[in-house]
């Protein structure tokens, strides 16, 4: 048996949009616009606000993602937790103005074993899965 890996892995996706940061920010933070590209939601750009993202339920998953807003810096940074299937990660969007528009960096971080449940038994198998997830996510970068 290996020791628990306490490091975290991130999934990072970057994309440049030919639009000013103000406009990208609206799409990232206005509930009706978010629904068009992300999921149905009851998001509000308020730190501490809890909300859910919903997609069609599928076998073994009700399609609900539980989130809480961690940081709101208009036109610069938006961060919220992303909890589903017992795994909580953090999604952070960072906007940077460029000559052509806006550079968006999406980072989903915190794929790691749950420290609290390490070795507590019931969740050990799932910890193994998350350990494996780290390898996959590392390979995606």
């Amino acid at each position, binding site marked *: *048996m290996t020791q628990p890996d306490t490091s975290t892995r991130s*999934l990072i*996706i970057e*994309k440049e*949009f030919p*639009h000013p940061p103000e*406009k*990208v920010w*609206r*799409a*990232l933070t206005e509930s009706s*616009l978010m629904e*068009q*590209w*992300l999921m149905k939601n009851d998001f509000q750009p308020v730190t501490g606000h809890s909300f859910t993202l919903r997609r069609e339920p599928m076998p*073994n998953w009700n399609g609900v993602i539980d989130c809480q807003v961690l940081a709101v810096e208009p036109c610069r940074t938006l961060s919220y937790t992303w909890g589903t299937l017992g795994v909580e990660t953090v999604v952070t969007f960072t906007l940077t103005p460029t000559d052509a528009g806006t550079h*968006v960096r*999406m980072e*989903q971080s915190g794929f790691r074993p749950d420290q609290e449940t390490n*070795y507590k*038994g*019931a*969740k*050990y*198998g799932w910890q*193994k*899965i998350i350990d*494996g*997830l780290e*390898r*996959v*996510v590392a*390979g*995606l970068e």
Partner: protein
Amino acid sequence: MRSTADNLFKALSDPTRRAIFERLTRNGEQTVRALTERSGVSQPMVSKHLSALKRARLVRNRRHGRETHYQARPEALAPLVDWIGNYGAFWQDRLDRLAEVLERMDK
């Protein structure tokens, strides 16, 4: 015939099977009898669950005398890990959609 991934997801969908798999992962190789003593279900049920786990390649077994010993194979979780890895594709897809939304917004 079911694919390995189907067998894997199906095997892990049952809490008793997950508990057996987790116990083997945690405590190493064990006999069917030892697993039965702690599982709260009958030996035939444990054997049935072990067969499902074996189909998913989550466990391997060996005979030793009159006892069958089972061992976990956590590496068999790979298809599940790949599935979760689709998150990368998920975000690519969503950001492409975001680009479309931005195009449609007040010009």
